[in-house]
């Protein structure tokens, strides 16, 4: 009788070192391909100093004066009025800047020293959204 040989049960073990490499590579892959949160904002057009002839300003150029908590809108010497943000947006959209040539889209924004950036931001983004080009009045 042939001797029965016991089957040797070998060690069944998996080599797991490559799994940690794959896990790290996958993490790096997803870090690189994940699209990051896109910020909110508005592109602001301002005449650059290189092209001063781009914008024409005259007495009827809309002017927004920001002082403290007041907004004053004017289109000439004797034509100024205090308005709210919503009224300012209506005035700007009524001018249809998008249909005007670039040299007639100026809106002058004057800011008092005590005005916060938050207030200034609301006005310039409203002007930019209506298609206006912001001209800063230098003191």
């Amino acid at each position, binding site marked *: 009788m042939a001797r029965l040989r016991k089957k040797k049960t070998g060690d069944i073990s998996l080599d797991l070192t490559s799994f940690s490499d794959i896990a790290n590579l996958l993490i790096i892959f997803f870090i690189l391909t994940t699209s990051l949160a896109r910020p909110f904002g508005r592109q602001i057009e301002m005449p650059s100093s290189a092209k001063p002839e781009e914008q024409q300003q005259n007495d009827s150029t809309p002017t927004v004066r920001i002082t403290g908590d007041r907004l004053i809108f004017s289109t000439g010497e004797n034509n100024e009025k205090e308005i709210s943000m919503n009224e300012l947006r209506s005035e700007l959209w009524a001018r249809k800047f998008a249909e005007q040539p670039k040299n007639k889209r100026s809106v002058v924004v004057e800011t008092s020293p005590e005005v*916060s950036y938050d207030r200034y*931001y609301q006005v310039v983004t409203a002007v930019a959204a209506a298609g206006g080009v912001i001209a800063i009045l230098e003191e």
Partner: protein
Amino acid sequence: MGDIAFLLIIFFMLVSNFMKSANIEIERPRGAELEQQESSRCSVVIDKDRTLWFEGVQSTASEIKGVLQDQAERDHEFTVHVSIHRDLQKKDFMPLIQAVSESGAKMILTGEPEE
């Protein structure tokens, strides 16, 4: 061992890139007519302490203007994202806005949409 060393190097390179702006404290202003923008290649921040940061490094308005001018000359579509703390006053933010506009680069003022 070699694999893990390279993986750790790559990991820390990526994390340090993302952490560049982690220590900058800023509260953005709110606006009504904002659009979602593409992630920026270039960002300028003025934080609540009036410190000016250019790509995570402290800088000045004149230095930023010079760098942006070079970039804008090479790429006419070059865009810079400008983030300014909402409570700053005109003397703090206006020099930066003027510097960026004079450089010729396209400027996007970032903010939070109004609820």
